[in-house]
């Protein structure tokens, strides 16, 4: 008997969505085969990796990580520029940790100023992430969307509670892209996409954040949800699930015990920064294999590792 390849041909395709503007715009999505299965056909755009920065000095970040950005942490725009110049991410994720009402509770006006400065300092696409507080994010995203009109940023994210305001301001009024965020459930993801469509947001302007998890922390739910979404998008040609997926990795992996436990608390575990990077890298790879089209990481070493990983796994690297 001769060998016969058992690949499936899929009728559906993940939509291509472009972030940013000008020369440095990046496209994500576009595959019509399973993730990284370049031997089956068109894998679309290689997954994109963004580096996370925040609008305040991140007191809760690991000291070794803050040291990398020594001297630019106080000025978010300088920080963004430094990150772009030194580490060459595909995009920058600006997270407004300082706007959190349970934290520094910075005003929307202050945040808008920061967003404008960062947008002026770098020409890479921006992903604007909020506080996880739905009321604050609603106001924050609306104001930032207006201030950054024309920049074609990705707003991370609109949730069921605030999708109307965020979708209307972000996509309809100021022509940005919106990430629809749901918590690890294919039906919820589909439903929010449909609600977005009914609001008038076009599929071309939609990305999904279907939830996130660090490996070891319910990652099986995330990976199975992504498997099912991609199989439905490709196999059943379900247009309400064909948006590219962005997965924030860093906000999950840096807080779990494996990364965050101090060397005094867990002497046997060794260097905590080493553990944190390994945790981020393992989760990033697992998320990419599950089908993310874009991910967000925190450590420049994780960024560099995942760039090497992607180019080699897709057969375009030097290896």
């Amino acid at each position, binding site marked *: *008997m*001769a*060998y*016969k*390849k*058992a*690949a*499936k041909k899929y009728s559906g395709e993940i939509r291509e969505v472009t972030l940013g503007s000008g020369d440095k715009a990046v496209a994500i999505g576009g595959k019509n085969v399973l993730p*990284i*299965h*370049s*031997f089956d056909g068109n894998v679309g755009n290689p997954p994109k990796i963004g580096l996370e920065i925040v609008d305040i000095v991140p007191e809760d970040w690991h000291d070794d990580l803050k040291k990398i950005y020594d001297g630019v942490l106080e000025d978010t725009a300088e920080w963004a520029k430094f990150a772009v110049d030194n580490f060459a991410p595909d995009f920058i994720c600006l997270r407004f940790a300082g706007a959190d009402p*349970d934290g520094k509770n910075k005003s929307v006006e202050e945040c808008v100023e920061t967003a404008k400065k960062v947008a002026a300092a770098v020409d890479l696409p921006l992903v604007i992430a909020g506080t*996880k507080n739905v009321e604050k994010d609603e106001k924050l995203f609306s104001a930032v969307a207006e201030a950054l009109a024309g920049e074609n940023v990705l707003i991370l994210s609109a949730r069921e509670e605030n999708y109307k305001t965020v979708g209307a301001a972000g996509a309809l009024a100021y022509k940005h892209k919106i990430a629809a965020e749901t918590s690890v459930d294919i039906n919820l993801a589909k439903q929010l996409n449909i609600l977005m469509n009914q609001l008038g947001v076009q599929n071309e302007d939609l990305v999904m954040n279907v939830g996130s998890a*660090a*490996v*070891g*922390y*319910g*990652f*099986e*739910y995330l*990976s*199975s949800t992504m*498997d*099912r979404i991609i199989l439905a998008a490709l196999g059943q040609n379900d247009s309400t699930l064909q948006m590219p997926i962005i997965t924030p990795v860093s906000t999950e992996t840096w*807080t*779990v*015990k*494996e990364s*965050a436990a101090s060397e005094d608390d*867990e002497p*046997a*575990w*060794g*260097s905590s920064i*080493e*553990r944190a*990077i*390994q*945790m981020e*890298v*393992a*989760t*990033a*790879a*697992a998320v990419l*294999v*599950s089908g993310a089209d874009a991910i967000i990481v925190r450590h420049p*070493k*994780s960024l560099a*590792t*995942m760039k*090497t*990983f992607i180019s*080699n*796994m897709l*057969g375009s*690297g030097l*290896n």
Partner: protein
Amino acid sequence: MALSGIEIFKLTPRKNCKECGFPTCMAFAMKVASGAVEIEKCPHISAEAKEKLAEATAPLMKTVKIGTGDYEHALGGETVLFRHEKTFVNKTLFAVQFSDAMDDDELARRMENIKKVDYERIGEQMHVEIVAVKYTGNRSRYLDIIKRLKELQKIFVLVCDDVDAATEAAALVKETKPVLVGANNDNLEEMVKLAKESGIVLGLNAPGVEEMYALVEKTHQLGYKELILNAGSENMAKTFENAVEFRRTALVGQDRTFGYPSIVFVNELAKGDSYLQTALAATFIMKYGSIVVLDDITYANALPLFALRQNIFTDPQKPMRVEPKVYEFANPKEDSPVLVTVDFALTYFVVSGEIERAKVPVYLLVPDAGGLSVLTSWAAGKLSAGVIANAIKSSGLEEKLNRKRLILPGKVAVLKGDIEEELPGWEIIVGPSEAMQIPKFLNELN
């Protein structure tokens, strides 16, 4: 491919003797076809018919056992490509690689690391299961290292394509049911002979998918089926393709030629980059690596990789549970509050993560709530006032505390009144309904 009832009927004696317990041979055949009855129930079935049936109903992917006794592990036996379709049954095993080119210091260091990384995570003991020993030409050193590695009591994977060296090495460890990765198109007959004689599992090497297919067929012709397929280490893309094609050809193409476990040398792909090695190991845990070979194991790479494996190889129908007991955070004292949550692992992890972030000394009481989330266990009657009160009473906390405060999950605030009745002397406080609000809540609690 399974046989139909009619096809099985044709294999029976067709004399309706009823000795199998069924009224007719046809009725029996139908039951066998549905998998409800074993063909052995028929006392008259011929050996030839039995074999034919066994072949037809054999799983698409073979389960290969390696190691012996307490160290025995099963590889392969998978039935689906995606875990939500059913479940993945045999977890990926981890190996650390040694070689005859390694000096004593490096040998000792890696052995020490293997011993050190041995810990429990949600009821599962985590450690490397395998030592891989690569032959690079120094035979006496190779044999010496194998002898020294025996003290670790791990399963051996001998990586050696030199038949003479492999024969000597196999003689040292054959009673432990090792794997020998080294059979290829040039040495196949001798390697199969060695594997048969010493009862070891044979790992096949081929440059590509088609060559591997031909090599497995040739091995079948030589009468050996205790096999593992090496996904190769030419480059990452090719290795990934091989691992996917092996599994997919077996399960989707229903072709048992590739129905064997795989081994992936991610250490060779990563070329010394430990972060890249971790990214690749994570990839092959998810996509079809049965054995993943690493250069070294430390807590830094073990913690994420074992955690991922534990997630991916859980049964999707059975939620992961943590042990019901009292967990302590930041050295709680006799006036620290007692938080309550459930034993569903995901809930526990989210809640404990937030408590650690708060850096406030607390007790966390986890009663036996059936492994369900807060609202689900409450709805199922498994998280009731009685369950919580009993857990408190048997925890010994009542004796330990001089200030008794119990923090309920906000989602079951409705239980407050009943618990107050069952636990006199306790102050029952309704906590936040979302875990992310716990740090703020605890920092404001006085």
